[in-house]
């Protein structure tokens, strides 16, 4: 539904749906509706965990032709995100990047950058500057 947005989209992936949704709330507070934004959290039973299907759906919701920056918490979140990105198909998978950045700070900083119309590489670099 956001596919017409010119701004890079942001996806937040956490093992905890509460963390994912809370982080998304903080991003929204920062940038309003200026960037396509979606979150995925929890396993298929609603418990703690991550799963590729819900991450894939989140990427679709936050899709932008300018690209999507994905923020993850622990290991499985990253592995499942990689899997979800592959499932997008080759035409789109190259426009999605998993950022090596802290979840909350990374997502907020990236969204601020994205809301100004920055390109995907710039959005990702801004977030990754936070990581030592």
């Amino acid at each position, binding site marked *: 539904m956001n596919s017409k947005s010119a701004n890079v989209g942001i996806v937040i992936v956490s*093992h905890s749906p509460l963390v994912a949704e809370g982080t998304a709330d903080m991003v929204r507070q920062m940038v309003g509706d200026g960037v396509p934004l979606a979150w995925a959290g929890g396993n298929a*039973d609603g418990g703690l965990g991550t799963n*590729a*299907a819900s991450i894939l759906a989140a990427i679709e919701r936050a899709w932008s032709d300018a690209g999507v920056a994905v923020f993850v918490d*622990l*290991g*499985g979140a990253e592995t499942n995100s990689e899997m979800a990105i592959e499932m997008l198909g080759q035409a789109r998978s190259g426009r999605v990047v998993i950022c090596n950045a802290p979840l909350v700070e990374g997502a907020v900083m990236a969204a601020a950058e994205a809301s100004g119309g920055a390109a995907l590489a710039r959005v990702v670099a801004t977030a990754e500057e936070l990581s030592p």
Partner: protein
Amino acid sequence: MPANAALIGGLIEACHQAIAANADHLSELDRAIGDGDHGTNMRRGFEAVYAERDRLAHLPLPKALEEIGLTLVMSIGGAAGPLYGTLLMEIGRQMAGDADFARVLERAIDAVARRGRAGAGDKTLLDVLYPVHAEVVRRAGLTGIADEAERAASLTFGMKAMRGRAGFLGERSIGHIDPGAKSCALLTAAICRFLEEQGPA
């Protein structure tokens, strides 16, 4: 029932049964060095596959394996979903173009290693997959492969975890069997047992 359907249906049933019977044990192993959900995640995955068994059994074997892999990815979650899913999807894809199972398995295991960014000795399911592959290469019998899988899983007891949640524990991960290695050994043994019962391939 056509032979292919009986084979696929039987393999699904054997794996589903192996996981259902051991899910609590797998979660217990995972509680020691991980987040404690490996058994429930695997059970959810194999229940999803089991629910689809009639449809899957009527596909050509490579396609069935690929779809089982996809179902596992979508339902197991955790790190195990992408790892087991990649293994099965890659076996299916490779099998479609290559009749040499040892080579098919080797490529699929390489894909799992890339997906998990892990190698031998990192205390993961790869520590079962590599020895199983070696047994397949030297044409060990089904019983030999199953025994080696179990032995290899028990050897993860002494390893230090380098990947996943267990990797955060460092030295404290030593002294526990890796749950992923254990589930991999259980599945390997279940598959070997089933194939043995089927008689000479």
